[in-house]
């Protein structure tokens, strides 16, 4: 049944739905999830496509092995991005992807615009469009609750937008559960522009397995090995907040919009240990052995009676240190507020950080902002989150994201640390050169998750790195040497992993012992009967990544856009453990040359015809 999943084309203008099988050829070329999403998106993508127009397709895609035994059970949501104006794509955990698969569907393409608010209900492959007038205005958690109550089924999985998506905030998310989000690149605004409040799904179909006995046995061996790694053990205990401590200690954290890169001992207040008293247990996404998600409950103080999930490291950095804010409870509350409104916590923090620095430098003032914008003012941050979501006052300007450059004026540009019109996250990449290159080349704008090349931080012997990457890679975090190769390798690997529905945390991310291509091919074969060698999987990853690049090339993206914020090239890190670190243009260009060469792209970053032919992407 894995291979019998269908694609549903939902045309809101015509109020019609068609489902088609996924051809074996498409599966072989793109697997599923992000891979097939990109294939579908590329058919409609053009420079003229307005991201908030009915023509922009909103595509949901479950990974090939989502919903069965694998290394996670995730999905991707893709469209042209209203946040950057370029390629949009966001990966989401939780239980929604698995439920879609149980309902017999692998992908949804939603096109057009409904004249009034609706939600889409899918039950075992049957798609129904239902009225959502009374859901409009509800937050993302209430929306899920109301739909479950209305249909009398607590197992229905819902992906919804909140007020932010309804109000077309450019960085609004699509959300499921308490916290899981397709957060980045503004997919919530695309959904809002179509008057779609939510997609609800319930499935109870059998999933047949090619070789049940060996699949069972092999998977058990795999997860036993995985659970023995230090990385997964720590992740299961602390979740991603454990990374905060590390970034702060090394000096690659964003403080005050990257004016600093560490807060030293003040960081104790935000470390994983500091979260433990508020934590009320751990959670997993569907089918995940690692359980890295944490729940919290605030029992005392200003934010008492707040309960929810998180915060993740990305939110602690983005709504915390990046804004000079070290009030942990305020950060948790702010992240929870973003989740309810359906805002991406990373972009929200980044645009607020930009505004705070503009205020610090007198580029904007109270005439525009009304309230004073000072670093570390938690209450002002909360106020801005409300304003952005409701598009009120100054929040209406910030809701435009990077497009607010036009309103703030020329002097504001360099203080938004963005790449391809998409803001840098909770980190500072002047120290880790592989991360810096990965940010510059990511196909969705500044994003550490497209490549997430972090194995050079572990101080592994060079021979180990050479074996993994197929060529020399320096084991020094701050070295440029071999980092083009490293980013190239991880981009391809992560494209495969996303196409399968796997999680970064359970694959090669921070542990060289975690599953790789070899384990992927074995699981695919045992569950679906499809056979791929490691090399063939890698070619699929290249195909997906190059197809994404081709869409950007249509938009006019070239080498000039694969770059970093001016601050990274011109301002050395002023203090702390990474003091003096900067990106040299020469070192950066060397990495970029190596990277293009390995991808089979020319010096300008355009995929070469011979390579397109090899990947079957010509014409």
């Amino acid at each position, binding site marked *: 049944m894995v291979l019998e999943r269908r694609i549903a084309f939902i045309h809101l203008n015509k109020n019609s739905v068609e489902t088609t099988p996924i051809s074996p050829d498409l599966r072989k070329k793109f697997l599923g999830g992000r891979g097939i999403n990109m294939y579908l998106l590329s058919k409609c993508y053009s420079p003229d496509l307005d991201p908030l127009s009915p023509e922009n397709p909103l595509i949901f895609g479950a990974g090939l092995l989502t919903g069965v035994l694998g290394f996670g059970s995730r999905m991707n949501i893709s469209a042209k991005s209203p946040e950057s104006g370029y390629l949009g794509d966001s990966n989401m955990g*939780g239980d929604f992807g698995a439920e879609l698969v149980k309902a017999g569907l692998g992908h949804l393409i939603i096109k057009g615009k409904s004249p009034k608010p609706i939600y889409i209900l899918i039950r075992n492959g049957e798609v129904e469009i239902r009225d959502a007038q009374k859901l409009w205005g509800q937050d993302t958690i209430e929306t*899920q609750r109301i739909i479950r109550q209305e249909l009398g089924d607590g197992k229905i999985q819902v992906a919804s937008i909140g007020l932010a998506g309804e109000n077309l905030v450019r960085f609004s998310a699509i959300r499921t559960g*308490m916290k899981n989000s397709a957060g980045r690149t503004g997919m919530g605004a695309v959904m809002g522009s179509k008057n779609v409040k939510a997609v609800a799904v319930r499935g109870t179909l059998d*999933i047949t*397995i090619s070789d*049940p006995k060996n699949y069972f046995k092999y998977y058990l061996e795999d*997860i036993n090995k995985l659970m023995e790694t230090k990385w997964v053990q720590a992740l299961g205990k602390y979740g991603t907040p454990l990374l905060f401590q590390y970034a702060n200690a090394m000096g690659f954290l964003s403080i005050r919009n990257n004016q600093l890169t560490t807060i030293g001992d003040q960081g104790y207040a935000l470390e994983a240990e500091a979260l433990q008293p508020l934590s009320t247990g751990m959670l997993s996404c569907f*089918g*995940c052995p690692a359980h890295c998600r944490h729940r919290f409950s605030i029992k005392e103080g200003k934010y008492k009676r707040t309960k929810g*999930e998180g915060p993740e490291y990305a939110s602690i950095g983005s709504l915390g240190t990046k804004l000079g804010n070290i009030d942990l409870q305020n950060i948790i509350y702010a992240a929870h507020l973003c989740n309810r409104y359906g805002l991406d916590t990373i972009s929200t923090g980044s645009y607020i950080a930009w505004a705070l620095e503009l205020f610090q430098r007198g580029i904007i003032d109270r005439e525009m902002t009304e309230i004073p914008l000072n670093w570390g003012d938690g209450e002002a941050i909360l106020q801005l989150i409300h304003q952005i979501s409701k598009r009120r006052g100054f929040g209406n300007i910030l809701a435009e994201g990077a497009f607010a450059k036009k309103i703030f004026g020329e002097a504001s540009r360099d203080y938004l640390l963005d790449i391809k019109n998409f803001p840098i996250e909770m980190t500072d990449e002047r120290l880790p050169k592989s991360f810096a290159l990965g940010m510059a080349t990511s196909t969705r704008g500044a994003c550490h998750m497209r490549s997430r090349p972090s194995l050079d931080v572990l101080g592994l012997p060079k021979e180990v790195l050479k074996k993994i990457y197929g060529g020399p890679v320096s084991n020094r975090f701050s070295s440029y040497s071999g980092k083009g190769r490293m980013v190239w390798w991880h981009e391809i690997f992560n494209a495969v992993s996303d196409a399968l529905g796997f999680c970064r945390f359970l694959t090669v991310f921070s542990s060289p012992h975690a599953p790789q291509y070899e384990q992927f091919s074995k699981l695919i074969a045992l569950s679906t009967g499809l056979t791929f060698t490691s090399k063939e999987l890698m070619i699929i990853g290249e195909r997906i990544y190059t197809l994404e690049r081709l869409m950007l090339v249509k938009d006019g993206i070239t080498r000039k856009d694969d770059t970093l914020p001016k601050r990274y090239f011109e301002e050395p890190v002023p203090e702390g453990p990474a003091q003096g670190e900067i990106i040299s243009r020469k070192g950066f260009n060397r990495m970029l040359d190596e990277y293009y060469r390995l991808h089979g792209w020319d010096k300008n970053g355009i995929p070469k015809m011979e390579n397109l032919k090899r990947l079957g992407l010509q014409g």
Partner: protein
Amino acid sequence: MRIKVNKDRCSGCHLCEMVCSLFHLRIINTEKSAIRIRKDDLDTSLNTPMLCRQCKKMKCLNEEKGMGVQEKKRFIWNRTRAERCPFNALFVFGEEAFHCDLCGGDPQCVRFCTPGAIQVIK
């Protein structure tokens, strides 16, 4: 032998449900498993794995005298028996109900439960 539940530890991953259907029926369908995670993912309450408690006095078989020993070894039961269970620990899909047969003595769900929310008690 029975399976003891420690709900403080359950992460709500549903691996046990998948594994149960895969082991017994050679398919994956979380609706066709003898263990079920009861959870409210929109709240912060604990997740609860639910499954047959292997009661000595089997109310589920009340009116089926002499069936106990033989039926305990069977996975597929029926709706009537499920409705008799005082703990609502038997799950119905269509007209079938799924009963924990302890996988013939080596419960597979326990092997896959990484947080240790379910364990075998002899």
